[in-house]
């Protein structure tokens, strides 16, 4: 009798155990399985457009031998050409010697037109729709319009004490907190059809400040983001693990994450790319302004500078005393954004 029961229980035990085991395997597989890349672009459905195993297993670009770098670039060019249907070049031009890039922006000239934002997007192959990633954000800040009113003079801040303060006031209430380069009253997403510049506001574009002491570089667990020899903070898009510690650390909100597969229509793709610069990124990696290094390493200016209609933006080599930026630093009233963060940015703001 007991044997019969045990056999039945054994059968049930076995099937239950198998069931649980399969659930466990399915769960583990779901967690560990390599992601299948989802083709979201409208390019030709080409097997060459898929990420190869070799590309998935490549190491950190800076640590590669020259031969490995060549192969990596070849793989990328092949993949991008197949995916976007355009002959794509991925440049590997190194950082020029003796150059430290710096940027200066004249906030009294900026009219808030945002042509820099859109030129950057055209140049740098960001995801174009759903979402459109923009590396530059323009803050619209109310001008200092301090209103002092006589009827608030005796109100006091803090308010008078009920226990009696014998008419001794410890603060005032005649202010309206507004204006000044504080992020407190800033608006960042004003309407596209708004007339600029609005006379009661001034405009401050913010992009990656290319800090000399970058908190993002310190936070990255795999050194995917690092400072190149020209002082530009770059990202190896094939090495980034998407943990977003750098985004947590950045005091300027300059870093953008590819939450999904980027939607870059082939018609809008810029085929002249650089490995660390504007080559198209993939799902799950970080990106940000690189001072257009695909242009600046070849002696040209960043796209945002060329797009600015009022000449508010200046760029150059901080080690060359004759460069625009050095002259501005020497003669204008220059400041750094959020200087208290001790990040020592190479992006300078000035009035003049």
């Amino acid at each position: 009798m007991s044997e019969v029961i045990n056999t039945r229980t054994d059968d049930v035990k076995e099937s239950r155990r198998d069931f649980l085991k399969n659930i466990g395997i399915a769960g583990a597989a779901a967690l560990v399985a390599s992601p299948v890349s989802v083709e979201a672009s409208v390019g030709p459905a080409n097997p060459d457009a898929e990420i190869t195993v070799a590309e998935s297993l490549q190491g950190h670009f800076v640590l590669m031998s020259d031969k490995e770098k060549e192969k990596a670039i070849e793989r990328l060019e092949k993949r991008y050409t197949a995916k976007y249907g355009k002959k794509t070049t991925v440049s590997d031009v190194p950082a020029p010697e003796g150059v430290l890039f710096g940027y200066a922006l004249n906030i009294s000239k900026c009219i808030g037109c945002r042509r820099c934002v859109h030129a950057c997007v055209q140049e740098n192959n960001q995801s174009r729709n759903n979402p459109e990633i923009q590396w530059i954000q323009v803050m619209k800040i109310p001008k200092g319009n301090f209103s002092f009113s006589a009827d608030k003079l005796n109100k006091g801040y803090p308010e008078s004490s009920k226990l009696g303060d014998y008419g001794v006031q410890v603060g005032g209430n005649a202010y309206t907190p507004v204006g000044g380069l504080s992020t407190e009253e800033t608006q960042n997403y004003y309407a596209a059809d708004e007339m600029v510049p609005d006379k009661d506001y001034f405009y401050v574009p913010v992009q990656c400040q290319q800090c000399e002491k970058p908190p993002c570089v310190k936070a990255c667990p795999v050194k995917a983001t690092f400072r190149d020899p020209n002082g530009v903070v770059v990202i190896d898009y094939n090495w980034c693990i998407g943990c977003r510690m750098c985004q947590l650390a950045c005091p300027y909100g300059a870093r953008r994450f590819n939450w999904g597969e980027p939607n870059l229509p082939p018609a809008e793709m810029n085929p002249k790319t650089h490995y660390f610069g504007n080559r198209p990124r993939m799902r799950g990696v970080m990106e940000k302004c690189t001072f257009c290094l695909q242009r600046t390493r070849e002696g040209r200016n960043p796209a945002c500078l060329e797009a600015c209609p009022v000449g508010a933006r200046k760029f150059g080599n901080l080690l060359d005393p004759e460069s625009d930026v050095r002259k501005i630093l020497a003669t204008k009233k220059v400041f750094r954004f959020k200087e208290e963060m001790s990040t020592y940015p190479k992006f300078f703001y000035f009035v003049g």
Partner: protein
Amino acid sequence: MDFGSYAIKGGPKYYAWLGFLLFFILVGSYTAYRQLTEGLILVGATDQIPMELFFANFIFTAHVAAAAILVVAPGYFYHRKDMKELAVIGEIIAMCFVATGITFVLFHMGRPDRLWHMLPGVGYPNFPNSMLVYDTIVLNVYLYLNLAGISYILYKKYVGEFDTKAMARWFTPVIYLAIIWGPLIHICTAFVLSSNARMGEWATAVLPFGFLAMAGASGPSLVILLFLLIRKNTKLEISDSVINLMTTIIGWSLGIILLVLAAEYFTALYSNTEHAASLNYSMFGHNGLNLYAPWFWGTVGSIVGCFVAILIPKVRKSYDRWLPVVCVVVFMTILVEKPMMLVFPAFSPSPLGEYTEYHPTLIEYFNVLFTWAIGLISLTLLVKGAVGILTGEVRYHKPITST
């Protein structure tokens, strides 16, 4: 009877619990697959609030994993005989929760297929600068320490060779290391948050103390609930003094949490500078965005209420009614506090002054529940099997060889 079959066997309520968890594992397998292939765009995170429910829940599981050593330490450090035998259950809780935490981190990563980049040798870990590298190391070491501890103790008891003197020579130091390692994982997790100077709410010296106090409140709550269940449904003896010790720890921890919160709020709000902008958003909302205000006041009120309740002897002695209720409330309060008070409101104002609210997606909720279900089912099965070994019902029987 062996470990596996004992673990799966149980009454109808036990099967209902396992079935409930299996449901979320099944549904979650699909949502996990969706997220792995389509990416984090399926969850509610944005560039303004890049940390999702996975990250908030990871911090909570680190609380419980760190505090599980409070079941191990009294038996080993303080030679409390009533708790020595239960140490293995504490280690199981620690192991399951740290594994759940690691799973949450896997869901948080943008490219989980590239995690090998963190391995020394084949990858390029940013040691000694990146706090995430430290956290990864300490979490994994804790997982394997506890795994080693559990495997050894349970195996030795299973084959009837459990000899405390032989153990003391080399194994007890492993347990001691695990006890010290518990708070260490939590301090590392606190440092991952407090190392970011731009996060006003997080870059505070008080964060590790707040975390450890929250651990001391939420961990023992779970332990009490588990022990009360074990007392009621199995033959394992757990004396009242064990439950009372856990209750005492919860009481002290809640008190310390209140002190930590009071210190933070005083320091921020007395001078009320822009440093307090995030706290003001949490407490009062900003320009009509006040999703987090009721959660703030509810959480703080709940912690105060539970603290007062646990000071009342009638509550502490009411093993059948009030104590489990308080434990559930403490556990859920601290669980909910992580996303709604610690994580999401801390991102507003953003570095450029933006205020945002976080809206999780359905896929995100199911992936969170999937991970919890995996963790809880492992915890259930392992604790059940361990209880079988501790009560002697699960023993190795040498196969009878025919002559």
